């Protein structure tokens, strides 16, 4: 799912400063931590508090949308709620903000979140970890189910590099070396021989940014 972190309240209050009536829209889709109605209501209270301290009374309303990255669902859910609304503050990832921008071209939409990465939720450790880079040329079949593109700081396809120290990455010793994990995993599966083949650079043509496909 898409991992986001809330922006500092001051930053949000700054870009909302020209507006008085704002709809705060949560997203019940995949964002983690969940950014649904509870988060939207909490943000209403926090921004009203912050606004008061700046001497401004904000008129904020909370709602939540099933999936902000869906243009049809977002338009139909928002249409009935935007009377008298001057701006929308989205709790979704960057996709949500841009979907709103697309379906409501006259209503300014702002992000309350910084969108960080696509991550797995490791509940037991209380962490959210980037594990897929959406590179368009998936090599998990060869690397024992562990992605070096997303999880190696250098995105090496033939690792590890000389900076792998006791299973940790030289860039950030707090993180596992992806190639150390790959080798241990392949060893465990008895497939270490798969690494004898040198992998050529991945096919960057698979996804030409910005990515777009037609369903």
């Amino acid at each position: 799912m898409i991992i986001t972190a809330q922006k500092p309240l001051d930053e949000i209050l700054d870009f909302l400063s020209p507006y008085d009536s704002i709809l705060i829209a949560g997203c019940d889709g995949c964002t983690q931590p969940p950014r649904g109605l509870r988060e939207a209501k909490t943000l209403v209270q926090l921004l009203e508090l912050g606004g008061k301290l700046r001497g401004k009374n904000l008129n904020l309303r909370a709602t939540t949308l099933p999936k902000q990255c869906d243009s049809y669902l977002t338009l139909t859910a928002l249409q009935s709620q935007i009377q008298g609304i001057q701006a929308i503050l989205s709790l979704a990832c960057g996709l949500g903000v841009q979907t709103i921008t697309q379906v409501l071209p006259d209503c300014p939409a702002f992000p309350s979140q910084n969108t960080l990465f696509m991550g797995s939720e490791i509940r037991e450790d209380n962490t959210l970890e980037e594990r897929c880079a959406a590179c368009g040329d998936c090599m998990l079949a060869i690397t024992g189910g562990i992605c070096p593109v997303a999880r190696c700081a250098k995105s090496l396809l033939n690792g590890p590099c000389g900076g792998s120290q006791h299973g940790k990455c030289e860039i950030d010793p707090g993180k596992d070396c992806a190639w150390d994990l790959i080798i241990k995993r392949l060893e465990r599966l008895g497939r270490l021989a798969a690494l004898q083949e040198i992998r050529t650079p991945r096919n960057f043509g698979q996804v030409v940014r910005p990515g777009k496909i037609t369903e």
Partner: protein
Amino acid sequence: MLLEIEKCQVCAICYSSCPAKAIDIIYYDMHSLTRYLENAKEEYKSDSLAIMCKGSAPDFQDVGKLFGVSKFIPLSVPCVGRIPPELLLKAVSLLGMKNIYVLACDEDYCRFERGSAITGRRVTALNVFLEELGYARELIKLKRNSLKVKADRSKCITCGNCVFYCPYDAAKLEQGAASFDLELCRGCGLCVTLCPAFALDLEHWEQERISTLISESPKEKGKASILVLRCQWSVFPGLDEEFDSNVRVIDGPCAGRVDPLHIVEALQNGMDGIMIAACPQEDCRSKTGSKEAQRSITALKKTLSQIGLEERLHFCSVAPRYPEAFREELNQFKVRIENACSEEARQ
């Protein structure tokens, strides 16, 4: 006898069971209980007594409904297992009680393991004894009640928080929505606090009910107002517990039910300081409630620091075995908030 105070949970079952009356306890001792009943008899003008464990219901509405009575002397205690049988006899023989209603938690859910079961046995024995003495049959009536989660499956967004965080494995995702095994649910409310979609609620501790209680908190002009959200197992209030007029205390089923949304609502409603009293993590009656509460309050404090309000929120761990701890925390916090408010007023 040696008492290891660090282990004591102040359930008082030892006190209510000791045949030699060698153990006394500061909360709800025989003398205070008797005095309370004597005064309450005058005040309530009733010959019915209702004793309720705090864990089985937050107020006496349920007692009335479950037993079908409207007028009674209320006595709310943390676990009915602490009530010595002598008190019940005294209530009948000296105070002339005609009915005694006892509402305990379901045996399996007793926060003190055996308190509810022991009470069941005591009530059976006392009823036999009283009947032999010529009193009405089944003069003491016992019922059991436990609070449970309520799930609105249509609101569920399948985030899985309840499944992961439920300390009792009562939640699972089934056919696209959370569903609960109510036999396993112990009503701690942690899942309710962590549900991002308001799909869950807790009997008697509903989101709305707590919001209303908070909005009714007293606010006096020129006086700092303090809200305390407290786990009902972290502090055992005396029978005559009183607070200053600017302090509002709301007991909840567990610190895990302390909702960051309620805290910001309270601040937004003009409360000047919010204090959260939780049990020490190792004493938590809902396994992980206190730990999770501390985590979410710490996160909220961080957010509040962005608008300079972090000092308005205070989290503390207190245990009934140290009866002064709560008051000390509250007094210190109150002074801090009062100073902050008068500082603000000066500016």
